[in-house]
């Protein structure tokens, strides 16, 4: 299997109804580590992630994966800010992505049970996913994304509106994933979380990449006044 990265983005832009959601973006991402996307509300974090993931079709520019787009799309997963639960049981939600890959039923079931246990839902496998709490849903969505062993995982503010305990559990799962070689690109508005997880930071403003570099440099000595203002907690326009 060839490498996903480097990923090169050149002049990529998404417009909907005459409004630019994100772009033009020029960017090169290398293999390995955690990239955290930060920026004020409405700056285009979600659109950037969805564009890279291929859910939002480009109006201009291009995205090039080292291994080719078709292969790349099979090897990545996405966890949405508001988790989408299939109207099925917890176990069936976990089995679903495996069955798409034609994993035999018994094997899929075994893996699903293992993951349910890992996210603390082993007693709740038969419950409808739609009646879970917010934290449980987000953990389930994360497990459902990771169960296919993606090489790249996108997460869009996965911990928005979660309590500390759920956040810690999710971060632990993410760190395990990173340790086993999963590349992570994640947006967050929680600077504490960004500092804990980030290897590199991508600061986005008005749909454009404003600053991009190693995490340590960004948090200690941001290059642009807007990034500095953002880190200070000022309102950035």
């Amino acid at each position: 299997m060839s490498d996903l990265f480097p990923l090169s983005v050149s002049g990529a832009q998404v417009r909907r109804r005459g409004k630019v959601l994100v772009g033009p973006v020029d960017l090169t991402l290398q293999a390995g580590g955690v990239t955290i996307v930060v920026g004020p509300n409405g700056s285009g974090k979600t659109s950037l992630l969805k564009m890279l993931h291929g859910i939002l079709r480009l109006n201009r520019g291009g995205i090039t994966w080292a291994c080719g787009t078709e292969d790349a799309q099979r090897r990545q997963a996405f966890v949405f800010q508001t988790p989408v639960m299939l109207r099925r049981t917890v176990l069936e939600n976990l089995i679903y992505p495996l069955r798409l890959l034609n994993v035999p039923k018994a094997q899929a079931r075994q893996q699903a049970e293992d993951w349910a246990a890992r996210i603390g839902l082993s007693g709740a496998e038969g419950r409808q996913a739609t009646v879970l709490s917010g934290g449980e849903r987000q953990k389930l969505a994360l497990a459902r994304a990771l169960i296919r062993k993606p090489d790249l995982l996108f997460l869009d503010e996965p911990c928005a509106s979660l309590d500390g305990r759920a956040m810690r559990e999710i971060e632990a799962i993410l760190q395990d994933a990173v340790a086993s070689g999963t590349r992570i690109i994640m947006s967050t508005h929680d600077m504490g979380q960004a500092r804990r997880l980030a290897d590199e930071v991508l600061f986005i403003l008005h749909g454009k990449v404003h600053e991009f570099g190693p995490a340590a440099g960004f948090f200690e000595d941001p290059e642009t006044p807007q990034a500095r203002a953002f880190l200070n907690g000022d309102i950035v326009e």
Partner: protein
Amino acid sequence: MSELWDGIAQAFWLIVTLDADLVEITLRSLQVTLTALVIACLIALPLAAILSVRRFPFRRITIAVLNALMGLPPVVVGLIVYVFLSRAGPFGVLGLLFTPTAMIIAQVIIIVPLIASIAHQSLRDLWAEYHDLLISMNTTQGQRIKTLLWDSRRALLTAALAGFGRGIGEVGAIMIVGGNIDHATRVLTTAIALETGKGNFSLALGLGFVLIALAIAVNLAIHWLSHTEREGRW
């Protein structure tokens, strides 16, 4: 009013004595409408799913036409099917006119738009919910359709029951293409029309009550079957 009580009494006696003619036309009603329902679902449900999932030219027009066809008078459907199946028509050689098959064809045409329209509404809503997830999971068109159909099966059951209701109570079309032939194509609704024509209101009402009871029984049975299937999970 006395006719109403006579009707109830007639219905009671017809059922209690298991009147042979009543059993025959009731079974034929069920046979025709359930066959039509199964065929109509096989057409309408995938059609509704495709309309929800795919973007293609004329999609909106197709949906508008389906919605409009929901209100199509059965008599018109009956006439059109008659013209096609008549010996003088394009499918005359098949000799299907005045057979239960012709009645099934007419009912399929009547209930497909109804089932497809109702199904499309719930499938479209579910697709809006699942859209990003299923695209993210790199699903094929077929997998999306399968997932939508399976996960909205309760709503689809309601759509199918609406189709059954329209089919079992329909008289205009099957009268024309079936001919209401005794022991061949007579069903509950055409028998009711016949008895009304003879002025036998109480017998007609009695048959009407049997029809209502049948519709309720089928609805309950299907709900019961679908309930035990996912017992303890909902």
